[in-house]
């Protein structure tokens, strides 16, 4: 048998993976190795595969992902810092047949927007809340976040987070899981292919639950911030596995009764 060449394989019929058509060609503004990009891709894939482009409204936060609307080809609203769940509440109530998601970082969702987060989940708004937790304020240059680990250094905790002064990191997923309004709460990651595939399954469940009007779906993605953590992307992922995952364990926290 003749040896098969590289060019023999690269044919449309042999395609195994390409970026979702819902990802635009704009170069993402994120730093090299940042989990935001991966989270965007997998979200776009799910929106594409579930045929949701025509009925999706996304709400972007203030933070690194403020410009998310440049990257995924669906209608977007850009919220004030922390307020995405309030916007989403109104959008979903006014247009119940749309697919509505928010996308927020830890400063946005777990500090300035805590009230909106809690009450949106408590009302059980039929939306998907995507929470990217990298334990730091990335866009403003690496300040301490509500989710910064104990002892972790940041530009506003230069000697490490002192929990006696600054409190302990807040576990938002565990908090909202206690509220009757949430139907599905899970914590996932995007640093490995396996992790991304699990996140994709979680996103598909969230789509299903939103279609079934079962309440708020809350998906936390524990992610990295190579620039803010002052590490290479590969080092940051290793550090995340060693330090973030023990504090923020991956897996389902709340699943709906079948």
């Amino acid at each position: 048998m003749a040896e098969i060449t590289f060019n023999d394989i690269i044919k449309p019929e042999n395609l195994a993976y390409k970026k979702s058509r819902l990802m635009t060609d704009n170069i993402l503004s994120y730093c090299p190795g940042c989990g935001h990009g991966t989270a965007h891709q997998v979200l776009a894939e799910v929106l594409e595969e579930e045929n949701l482009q025509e009925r999706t409204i996304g709400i972007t936060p203030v933070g690194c992902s403020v410009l998310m609307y440049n990257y995924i080809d669906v209608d977007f609203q850009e919220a004030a810092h922390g307020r995405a769940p309030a916007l989403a509440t109104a959008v979903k109530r006014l247009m119940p047949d749309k697919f509505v998601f928010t996308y927020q970082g830890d400063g946005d969702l777990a500090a300035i927007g805590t009230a909106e987060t809690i009450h949106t989940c408590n009302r059980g708004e039929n939306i998907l809340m995507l929470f990217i937790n990298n334990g730091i304020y990335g866009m403003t240059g690496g300040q301490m976040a509500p989710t910064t680990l104990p002892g972790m250094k940041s530009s506003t905790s230069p000697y490490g987070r002192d929990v006696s002064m600054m409190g302990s990191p807040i576990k938002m997923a565990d908090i909202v899981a206690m509220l009757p309004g949430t139907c599905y709460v899970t914590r996932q990651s995007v640093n490995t292919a396996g992790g991304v595939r699990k996140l994709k399954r979680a996103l598909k469940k969230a789509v299903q639950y939103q279609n079934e009007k079962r309440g708020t779906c809350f998906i936390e993605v524990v992610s990295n911030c190579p620039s803010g953590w002052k590490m290479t992307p590969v080092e940051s992922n290793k550090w995340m596995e060693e330090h973030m995952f023990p504090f923020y364990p991956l897996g389902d926290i709340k699943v709906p009764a079948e």
Partner: protein
Amino acid sequence: MAKIKGAVVVDRERCKGCEVCVVTCPTETLALATEVNSKGYHYCYPANPEACIGCSNCAVVCPDGCITVYKVKIG
């Protein structure tokens, strides 16, 4: 025995050289180039293309959507 053979195509200009794909690849197909792209990043490329099994792990973890994967069954 059937064997899967894969091929990866990297959009060098989109690549930021984060290396996440390189460490994810189970067959050490990928590496960072010594040359840089127009943004100054050491872009990723299939340094060992023969090894590719088309698993797509590299493309799935790529934050910048730079990688397209093809695969065929042979034998």
